């Protein structure tokens, strides 16, 4: 008897509201007429036909137009209401905006940092085809990797390229310090040596000169922009000559080009480039054909069709070229340039950033986001209860669910959008601070991806909170809402409270982390190094022929001033890793022992304790055979009486005499254990036993003067030393460093991370605290009347404070209980990378938990105190 339901529904769906009544009425009327005239079947068919005919652009278009008009005006009203409610509840608006924008700013900065690190080396067009060759020594019995490094032998690249069809080009990359004269004034610089193919393999932009021929002449040199300006100012550097002193050779080189080293996004830094041939001035001629020494990084350019796995030749080559113990297998492998910057397992001279750093940054950013997000959610959902009356009135006046939902969505969007904008602006202004803390230069160019990321982030927060808020409210009946039944459904309260617990857990973990990182850093700096690093100065001698006599003359002159206590000289300095010698053994296991060549006054100047035996005698009768070893070496070989022993090694032809054992001192970073060490006056005593080495300085000689300064002002002493240096060696610049400062720098990286975690945890706890404040205030407000009644019935103020804070107390305690074990595990893992580390102290954990508890309780109490001490007459009137 009726028209088909579905067609009515269909019509109702697409037809604009204001047309619906008239159209449906007409259709119904016609249906009734038709039913009598044509029968039900046909009438229904006609009805449907008419409905389908009405599905017409002019109706739909009206629909669309109307929809737009209606939505726009509603949106305007929503926005007005949102702004009014924000103004009315300034406290929540500020907490929400502040928390969210801080975290947006931090996340954005973290994103820029990570993107910057990942952009290293990506500008080379052949980045995927260029690989660095590394070597790896594997013990065939235990299958363990004995040693791996990206510093490889000089002939490796050349030989590989000859034998492997898959390799198109190769280049070596080596460096050495040098002195360059400008207007007869010496400057200490770092020279890099490469093959001509370097220029065609890598895409460093050429500013002047010809890429094809620039490195073809042995006496040519390429400069970075910066250096071209330093040495030639505004003049055209092309064709100009430079005087370069490399070791003891003076070279006259001609500038053949200027290029841009892209120093903020290239792992291969350089200021000066010279052809690799000139490296022969630095290292012995034979090392150009020998596989025994690692001096350079070898880069190869693979053919398009070659995959790195196919390069079997790499492995075969290795076994043929080096005589080595039976049970050691040498393998070569490739690392793609595109991943080099974040590779920290096999490292060479190229700059790298540990990927761990990126993960930590990401993790902290996520933590901050979670804490701020939770704030926003808990605050918004509980705050919404304050607006129940509004919702009730709206409902009674006929607001539909969708409308209410849209209202709360609009509010969420408004807040997140504002904080997104504020956060981005904050990020812009905080960038220099952030760069300073992380120590990485970052460009503020968000790019499309960055903007898309931030937009989708804010949008998802807005949608999530808007949805949560509206589901809480819309479900309420109008009656309850109007009565102001400010009670959240039980499930919601659980939800909010577990979020608060999570928030506290995360913040406490961050604080514990920050405190422990700080403690570990302090421990490393305060730990006794085994020598006295204060007022100890290292003066680089530079390469020259008779360093011994220079050292003698300097010492004699310097010691005339009684403020200068002692002078010695050393091969290795405090900045670079020390020389490591390899002694082949009869049984096949090579022994790796650190080495330093010194002058007889070394122990005295460094203030290193001699445990047994005697120091080098100054008369130096036994200079060529006497050696000193450290405790670690004696322990390593398990000697009972070291003075009877010889350093074991199959190649030793001459004997040496251990004359003393020194107390262990830290010559490497605190990350490492103290390893076996030999000190000698010259290399003769043990030279014959050496079968390999890795070192920053070679050949063995003393390269640094070490001066112990007495108490008093530093500057006059430095002036005095500079005067002496000018007398002894007018050719070389006076380049010095204080050992304690170098050590400081060495832990700068860790300290920077300490600082980053400090700030991040401060930020997180601040945001969490804001959230707690907000929650507390809301829950207290809800109980205003109850407090009034309790007071009238004689409750005391402290009792009321206890009553109001109890619930929050529990949340924080639970947060602590979860945080402690998690933080314990995480910190334990981190500390494992240090050989010398603090013990984790459970009391510290508890203390931190207590501090958080006390701070939160204090701020909660202040809030509840206000209410508890107020006049019950007022609170009872509160609506």
């Amino acid at each position, binding site marked *: 008897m009726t028209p088909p339901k579905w067609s009515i529904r269909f019509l109702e769906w697409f037809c604009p509201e204001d047309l619906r*009544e*008239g159209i*449906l*009425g007409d259709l119904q*009327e016609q249906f009734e*007429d038709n039913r009598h005239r044509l029968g039900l079947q046909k009438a229904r068919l006609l009805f449907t*036909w008419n409905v389908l005919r009405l599905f017409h652009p*002019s*109706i739909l278009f009206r629909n669309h137009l109307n929809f737009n008009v209606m939505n726009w005006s509603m949106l305007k009203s929503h926005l007005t209401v949102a702004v009014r409610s924000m103004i009315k509840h300034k406290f929540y608006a500020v907490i929400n905006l502040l928390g969210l924008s801080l975290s947006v700013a931090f996340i954005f900065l973290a994103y820029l940092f990570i993107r910057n690190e990942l952009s290293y080396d990506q500008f080379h067009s052949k980045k995927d085809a260029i690989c660095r060759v590394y070597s790896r020594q594997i013990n065939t019995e235990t299958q363990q990797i004995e040693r791996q490094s990206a510093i490889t032998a000089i002939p490796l690249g050349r030989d590989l390229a000859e034998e492997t069809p898959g390799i198109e080009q190769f280049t070596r990359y080596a460096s050495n310090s040098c002195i360059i004269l400008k207007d007869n004034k010496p400057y200490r610089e770092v020279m890099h040596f490469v093959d001509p193919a370097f220029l065609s393999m890598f895409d460093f932009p050429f500013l002047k000169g010809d890429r094809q021929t620039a490195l073809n002449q042995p006496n040519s040199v390429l400069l970075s922009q910066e250096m071209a300006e330093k040495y030639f100012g505004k003049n055209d550097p092309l064709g100009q000559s430079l005087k370069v002193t490399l070791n003891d050779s003076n070279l006259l080189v001609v500038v053949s080009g200027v290029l841009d080293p892209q120093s903020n996004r290239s792992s291969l830094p350089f200021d000066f480039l010279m052809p690799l041939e000139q490296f022969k001035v630095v290292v012995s001629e034979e090392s150009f054909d020998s596989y025994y020494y690692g001096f350079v990084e070898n880069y190869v350019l693979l053919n398009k069709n070659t995959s790195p796995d196919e390069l079997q030749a790499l492995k075969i080559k290795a076994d043929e070229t080096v005589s080595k113990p039976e049970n050691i297998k040498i393998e070569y492998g490739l690392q793609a340039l595109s991943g080099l910057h974040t590779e920290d397992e096999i490292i060479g001279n190229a700059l790298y950033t540990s990927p761990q750093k990126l993960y930590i940054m990401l993790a902290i950013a996520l933590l901050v986001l979670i804490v701020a997000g939770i704030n926003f959610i808990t605050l918004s959902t509980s705050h919404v209860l304050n607006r129940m009356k509004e919702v009730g009135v709206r409902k009674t006046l006929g607001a539909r669910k969708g409308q209410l939902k849209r209202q709360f969505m609009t509010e969420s969007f408004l807040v997140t959008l504002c904080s997104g904008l504020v956060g981005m602006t904050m990020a812009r202004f905080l960038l220099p601070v952030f760069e300073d803390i992380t120590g990485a230069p970052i460009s503020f160019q968000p790019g499309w991806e960055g903007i898309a990321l931030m937009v989708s982030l804010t949008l998802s927060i807005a949608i999530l909170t808007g949805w949560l808020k509206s589901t809480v409210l819309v479900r309420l009946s109008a009656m309850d809402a109007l009565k102001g039944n400010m009670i959240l459904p039980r499930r919601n309260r659980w939800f909010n409270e577990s979020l608060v617990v999570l928030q506290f857990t995360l913040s406490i973990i961050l604080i514990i982390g920050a405190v422990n990182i700080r403690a570990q850093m302090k421990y490393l700096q305060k730990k006794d190094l085994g020598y006295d690093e204060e007022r100890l100065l290292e003066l680089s001698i530079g390469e020259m022929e008779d360093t011994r006599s220079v050292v003698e003359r300097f010492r004699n002159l310097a010691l005339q001033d009684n403020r200068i206590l002692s002078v010695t000289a050393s091969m290795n300095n405090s900045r670079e890793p020390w020389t490591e010698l390899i002694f082949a053994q009869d049984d096949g296991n090579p022994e790796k022992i650190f080495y330093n060549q010194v002058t007889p006054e070394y122990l005295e100047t460094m203030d290193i304790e001699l445990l047994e035996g005697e120091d080098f005698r100054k008369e130096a009768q036994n200079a060529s055979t006497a050696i000193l070893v450290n405790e670690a070496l004696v322990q390593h070989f398990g000697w009972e009486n070291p003075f009877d022993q010889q350093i074991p090694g199959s190649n030793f032809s001459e004997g040496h005499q251990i004359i003393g054992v020194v107390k262990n001192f830290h010559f490497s970073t605190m990350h490492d254990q103290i390893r076996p060490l030999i000190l000698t006056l010259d290399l003769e005593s043990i030279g014959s036993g050496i079968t390999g080495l890795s070192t920053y300085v070679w050949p063995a000689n003393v390269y640094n003067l070490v001066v112990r300064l007495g108490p008093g002002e530093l500057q006059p002493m430095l002036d005095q030393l500079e005067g002496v240096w000018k007398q002894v060696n007018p050719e070389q610049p006076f380049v010095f460093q204080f050992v304690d400062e170098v050590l400081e720098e060495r832990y700068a990286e860790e300290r920077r991370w300490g600082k980053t975690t400090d700030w991040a945890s401060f930020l997180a706890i601040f945001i969490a605290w804001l959230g707690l404040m907000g929650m507390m205030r809301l829950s207290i407000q809800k109980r205003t009347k109850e407090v009034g009644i309790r007071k009238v019935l004689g409750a005391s103020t402290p009792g009321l404070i206890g009553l109001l804070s109890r619930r929050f107390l529990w949340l924080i305690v639970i947060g602590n209980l979860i945080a402690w074990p998690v933080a314990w595990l995480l910190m334990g893992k981190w500390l494992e990378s240090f050989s010398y580390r603090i013990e984790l102290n459970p009391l510290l954990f508890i203390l931190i938990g207590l501090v958080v508890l006390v701070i939160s309780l204090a701020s909660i109490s202040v809030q509840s105190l206000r209410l508890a001490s107020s006049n019950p007459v007022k609170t009872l009137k509160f609506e």
Partner: protein
Amino acid sequence: MKKSYLGEFEELVLTMVAILGEEAYGNAIVESIKKELERKVNLSAVHITLYRLEDKGLVKSEMRGATAKRGGRRKRYFQITNTGKSQLLDLQEQRQKLWKMLPKLQFRYL
């Protein structure tokens, strides 16, 4: 002012609205077209045209007169506006003008 042009069906519906006066609503228009011109038209087509005319400002509408037969729904009554009337008059005049020209043309072609 730019003159809007009317299609044949639009003109028909507009005229009917004018003829029916106070009684012009969807079904009435369909019925009277059927009665006067013996032409079967579709209700939905009439509705669509009516709204188009309303958009053009040639008719205006109001809701009144619910009946049980319509499920208690009111009717949307249309009424011709002054613009609508003048447009109809214009059309009429144009026709007249053309009609006057017609015989000459006929001769020329014959």
